[in-house]
């Protein structure tokens, strides 16, 4: 049972464009939504996270948009740079310790 769905599987954008990565979830008890990125040969690392008390979280060029009613959230990467090329994982967690990860989106930013 896939509780966290991510799309697209792969995304290519040009440098300077906004990359949009999408995620949806099924369990309405989820209340913590982080995004991790993973560069080739490296481990995943936390990029940005949101809790449903707000529907938007910004950190520099990275913004999470959260829609509780539709159980969807997305990561927008503004002014994409080639250095942003990586795999991005969305995740969702509850008041427990089990954070469920999506399958990842491979982002390619072309110069």
């Amino acid at each position: 049972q896939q509780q966290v769905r991510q799309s697209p599987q792969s995304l290519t954008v040009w440098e300077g464009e906004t990359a949009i990565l999408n995620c949806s979830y099924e369990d309405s008890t989820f209340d913590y939504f982080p995004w991790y990125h993973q560069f080739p040969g490296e481990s995943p690392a936390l990029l940005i996270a949101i809790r449903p008390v707000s529907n938007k979280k910004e950190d520099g060029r990275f913004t999470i948009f959260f829609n509780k009613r539709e159980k969807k959230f997305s990561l927008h990467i503004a002014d994409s740079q080639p250095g942003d090329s990586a795999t991005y994982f969305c995740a969702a967690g509850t008041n427990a310790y089990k954070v469920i990860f999506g399958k990842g989106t491979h982002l390619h930013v072309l110069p």
Partner: protein
Amino acid sequence: GGIITQTPKFLIGQEGQKLTLKCQQNFNHDTMYWYRQDSGKGLRLIYYSITENDLQKGDLSEGYDASREKKSSFSLTVTSAQKNEMAVFLCASSIGENTEVFFGKGTRLTVV
């Protein structure tokens, strides 16, 4: 800052063999995790431990055992290696629930 050290970095085992992966963290975090990463399948939770001597099953615990010997260490055992076990196993830790999870560099398992 802190670091999570996983040993070994590469592990080659034979089908049916019992294999142990080790993890140490010096963050002084209470919670530790073992994830398996397969290409195209994301990160799947095998076991986690909230505190020393605690053990909780994740979604992928069948075929694995784990042990939280002390706060700083968490080991994972593949009870009987299978051909489809080729994957990267990531150890991780966090302060507590729904906080940033820090990952180790991983152990890449190959079964021959």
